[in-house]
């Protein structure tokens, strides 16, 4: 039903696959196979093409994601200020690799190639909240704010 509404919303656009998938992901937090099938059917696009688009772009997730999304920037400016060490530290603290989700479905760790906040790198974003100048020793206290 939700998906139907989203498709209806974009009906007037000529080619709306990406915006539709984006809206579905905002709604459901990932792109479940049923949703992808439904989109393919309703837009009359071959399923494989919808999967092609969904898997090409980094912003789409074909796996369920956790309640909190932790995004660590690996852009150039963050890299030269230790971004990779931040990813490693979050990874260790949550015991997951990038693009994985903790077993309790609380956290997903993602990396990104720049958030445009390069002046204050390394940058971590959790659920839309930005943290600048992150060091590995600050990681724990940042994450613990989101633990239930």
């Amino acid at each position, binding site marked *: 039903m939700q998906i139907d509404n989203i498709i209806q919303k974009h009906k007037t656009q000529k080619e709306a696959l*990406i915006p539709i998938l984006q809206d579905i992901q905002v709604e459901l937090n990932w792109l479940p196979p049923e949703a992808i099938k439904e989109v393919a059917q309703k837009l009359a696009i071959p399923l494989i093409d919808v999967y092609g688009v969904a898997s090409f772009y980094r912003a*789409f997730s074909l796996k369920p994601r956790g309640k909190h999304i932790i995004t660590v920037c690996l852009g150039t400016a963050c890299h030269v200020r230790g971004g990779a060490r931040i990813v490693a530290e979050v990874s260790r603290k949550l015991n997951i690799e990038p693009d994985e989700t903790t077993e309790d479905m609380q956290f997903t760790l993602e990396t990104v190639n720049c958030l445009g906040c390069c002046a204050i790198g390394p940058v971590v974003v959790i659920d839309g909240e930005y943290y600048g100048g992150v060091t590995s020793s600050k990681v724990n206290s940042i994450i613990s704010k989101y633990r239930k």
Partner: protein
Amino acid sequence: MAYRTNLMLCTCTMCVSVGALKIKRKIEEEIKRHNLEDEIQIIPVGSSWLCTRGPTLIVQPDDVVYQFLKEDDIPHLVEEHLLKGRPVKSLMYIHPETLHPIEKLHQIPFYRQQRLITLRNRGMIDPDKIEECIARDGYKALAKVLKSMTPEEVIQEIKDSGLRGRGGAGFPTGRKWEVCRAVKGSPKYVVCNADEGDPGAFMDRSIIEADPHAVLEGMAIGAYAIGASEGYIYIRIEYPLAIKRLERAILEARDYGLLGENILGAGFSFEAHVFKGAGAFVCGEETSLLASIESKPPEPRTRPPYPAQSGLWEKPTNINNVETWANVAAIINQGAKWFSEIGTETSKGTKVFSLAGNINNAGLVEVPMGITLREMVYDIGGGIPNGKKFKAVQIGGPSGGVVPDSLLDLPIDYERLQEAGAIMGSGGMVVVDEDTCMVDFAKYFLIFTNDESCGKCTSCREGSAAMLEILTRITEGKGEEGDIEFLEELGEAVKEASQCGLGQTLSNPVLSALMHFRDEFEAHIKYKKCPAFVCKDLITYSIDPDKCTGCGLCLKQCPADAITGKLKKPHQIDDSNCIKCGVCRDSCKAKAVILKDRFDK
């Protein structure tokens, strides 16, 4: 109603991340408490003054700037400055050498050399209020064009100005418009490239967050010139605030009749749509970007035909970068002659750069073309923090290269930078200090391009993988004689054999590092040493017993249980357990954790 004082509070993504909205609420409270609501207003502005010093506030018309604001500072600030007229010195910018507070914004060295054309409204308007933009000549150029200029005259003006595309390649904008106008076919489209894929750059985000109307007005003028009535702004999804401001700006402009049907009653119509990217670097390439809007696989295709001939839905399409569009209205208002007198022989006007990395004044900078990199790094950027030594400035991101100290006197100009093995790129500048390993840095870019390659050309896909494999070996201490030469050969081959700009330029970071920092590659290969102490396999961590205070913090934080020691006694690191994560070094207040070469050759 005129206010006696305007408080220009930066609410860009970065300032918001350090609490700008809390500061806003606190100021509002204090203004109310002192009954100053009729005299003083807060204007939330976009875009970055000194991005590392946020939240920042500029008090106008006094021109006084405050930095690093905390909620607790606000009652004092409001009372002293706004009530009693005594600016608060302790919250001002401190000159790094004289250590005196600098009161006026325009006395700060970071601003002195800047010249704002693209960013003309930066910090002066609330981007969410079109009236403020209009009060500062927003849409005046569009009105002028619609009332008194033919499309040909507009194109001639842009051609005469010498404006070149700011998205990287520097193609003359007026010529591009001319070609698109001349092509038969309808409808035509204009597109704004706001994908800003260079990781480490934030010009386009900042321009949109500060003044979204500058982009929309430029697009409307361009559409009139080429004969289009519809436009798309392709913006990366990683920029939620910029997207929000842009979407709002479009609605406001429509309400005012500045976009939409029959604009200003002149019979010209123009609709702008926002299209959100989905996180793929290659989508910044124009043909791939257009395919992405059409929901096709975003693989670049060979040109010709150029988008001007066959672009969006195979219709004539003119695509320009955000900054290019944002220059247009200023040129129409002030004339091609005025614009072409700024800059160098071949590079006219100003260029916006984002300065980041290991630099004191990271932030957004707009300077006339032709100023030197040294002025950028030292006068504007304020040099390198923490007493470290400058090593290089990376320009042009994954398509660009590193410029060492010996070339810092190069003027910023498309041709001159290219001669030096770097490129202008879109304007991202990342400064690196002595703690950056140039082999690791080159590898970083290859990881990026290898991951972002769409995979269509074998040379790009496999070439980047092969180069990455060699670089990885070198950083692991497994480099062999001949690796450098092989990297150079491969780099040139990939350049020649790839179809789009991604593949054609992906070897630049490696080749430029080899050109300027060959000795670092040799140190890794021959002596198994990483001079910057970055490559994990070539270094060891240890604790200086003379400096260690035995506080036990590192022992508590070490994720590998590699540290032992009694409280108040010097601690030790067991190298066989150490995973070189650096947590101990980050957390040590006594700076007792030291790095050494692993192999003594």
